[in-house]
């Protein structure tokens, strides 16, 4: 049969991969460890580490938000809801005039609508929004995917520090507020 040599070569590739998967430490230690050699991750027991820049969920640093509504306007599918009111804050120096600030009443992101494009994080001029690589926030009820400002604030703990840049870069490194 002329159909043999190519098939044998292909089977060789498969067999080599099988050996590499079964014995990840090489054939000198012939103890089969398929769970170690396999490339798949056994999800609930072990977890994958997403990259620090991964767009998982948006965290809100409430102190920086001025309710300027830029993110609401720029969102492509309008899934951010903000309500605020003007209020007087105590003066910075003694004897000064009280300052007028915008207080945030409501900041909701509907993750059932969000398509994780990151435009809101980009346009925020006051660094109030950050990406967190956290991905485990599925809910049994769709209404629970509407995260309010307390819940969005909790995600701030999971925001990793910004990475350093590759050589030759002129970009300024940003910082995550404490």
């Amino acid at each position, binding site marked *: 049969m002329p*159909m043999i040599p*190519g098939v044998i070569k*292909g089977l060789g590739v498969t067999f080599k991969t099988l050996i590499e998967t079964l014995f990840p430490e090489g054939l000198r230690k012939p103890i089969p460890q398929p769970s170690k050699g396999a490339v798949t991750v056994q999800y609930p027991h072990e977890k994958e580490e997403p*990259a620090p820049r991964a*767009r998982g969920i948006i965290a809100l640093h409430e102190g920086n938000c001025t309710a300027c509504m830029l993110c609401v306007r720029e969102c492509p599918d309008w899934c951010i809801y903000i309500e605020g009111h003007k209020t007087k804050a105590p003066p910075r120096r003694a004897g000064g005039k009280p300052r007028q600030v915008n207080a945030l009443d409501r900041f909701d992101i509907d993750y059932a609508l969000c398509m*994780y494009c990151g435009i809101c994080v980009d346009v925020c001029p006051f660094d109030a929004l950050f990406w967190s690589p956290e991905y485990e926030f599925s809910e049994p009820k769709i209404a629970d995917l509407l995260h309010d400002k307390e819940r969005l604030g909790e995600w701030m703990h999971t925001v990793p520090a910004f990475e350093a840049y590759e*050589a030759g870069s002129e970009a300024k490194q940003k910082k995550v507020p404490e």
Partner: protein
Amino acid sequence: MNVTEQDQLSYIAAQAADSRINVEIETEGMTLNIGPQHPATHGTLRIVVKLDGEQVIAAEPIAGYMHRGYEKLTEVRTYPQVTTLINRIDWLGSFANEVPFILAAEQLMEVEAPPRARWIRTILFELSRISNLTLFLGDMGIQLGAMTPVFYAFRDREHVLNQIESVTGGRFHPNFDRIGGIKDDLPAGWIDGTRSAMTRIAEFCDQMEALLLNNEIFESRTRGIGVIPADIALSYGMSGANLRASGVDWDLRRDGGDGLAYKELDWKVWTHPDGDSFARFWVRLQEVREGVKIVEQLLDGIPSGPVMAKVPRIIKVPPGEAWVETENPLGAMGYYVVSKGELVPFRVKIRSASFNNVSIASWVLRGVYVPDIITILASLYFILGDIDR
């Protein structure tokens, strides 16, 4: 007019004679629906084939089950918002979808991306081609009944996707290209990580060659199946690797505009004279290898500097029209952007490769046998989102 059974039969017989089929025994034709939902159709494409026994008399691809109306949606989205939508056209090579649109908008605004941004753009463009075609190489195997290649393809594509994720933040929908540059610079250690991913892809190419190209069963199922001559391919508007597999030396990376950094590199356009399914597989395999070479050259010579040109915060594109076409993983993809000087484009015409590539199905499927339909459709390689938009 009433169509009698006799009329129908004579129609089928006429079509059968037309498609070079022996009709000594006048059998009744059978109409077979492949799709809209079928494991071999890559999504929701429907192909209606008329059969005479095992042989196809006529085939008609029916698209539109996944139409999402991108051209209309872009008319109510601002320019930065459009990139996040058009990511979803060809979902396996998302970054490549953004580039021609951004280049068209840059042409209208008369801004130019700084050299560092141009090089990073080209790297990501090529990485998305590699990740897309890697999956094709494995997918072609599973369409022909070989289970192993597709698992290897998913295994090794993961390394490329991880590199794309660690720089853009998204595995499938990067949304990283901006008018006047790119969103952010590379993170530290990314260049070395990409180099090791490229060596893995080079190994993967050798494995695919051993598993499929040298395999006699694979060869006998693809050689001479679905031959598309060069003039037919050109007349149907095919592009990309499908056209190069028909022997036409045409590549927009080499022949197209100056938007990306390809012209400063040393690489080769592969063509194959046969035009059959085997040739299409072979050309794509060589293209992944060439892509690895291109990425390695690009990584060696990234210029330093800023990644963003000076553009206003609120982007208003001056009135005018621009047409930019680039060589995407699936073929030529172009955007015709008309601006009236507002925040949103007035009209965007999207030319995507798969629509033209799959329209040849009615020509090439005539006269083949039923199992070859799958081979030919797999080797034409279309993404459903790219057909329907």
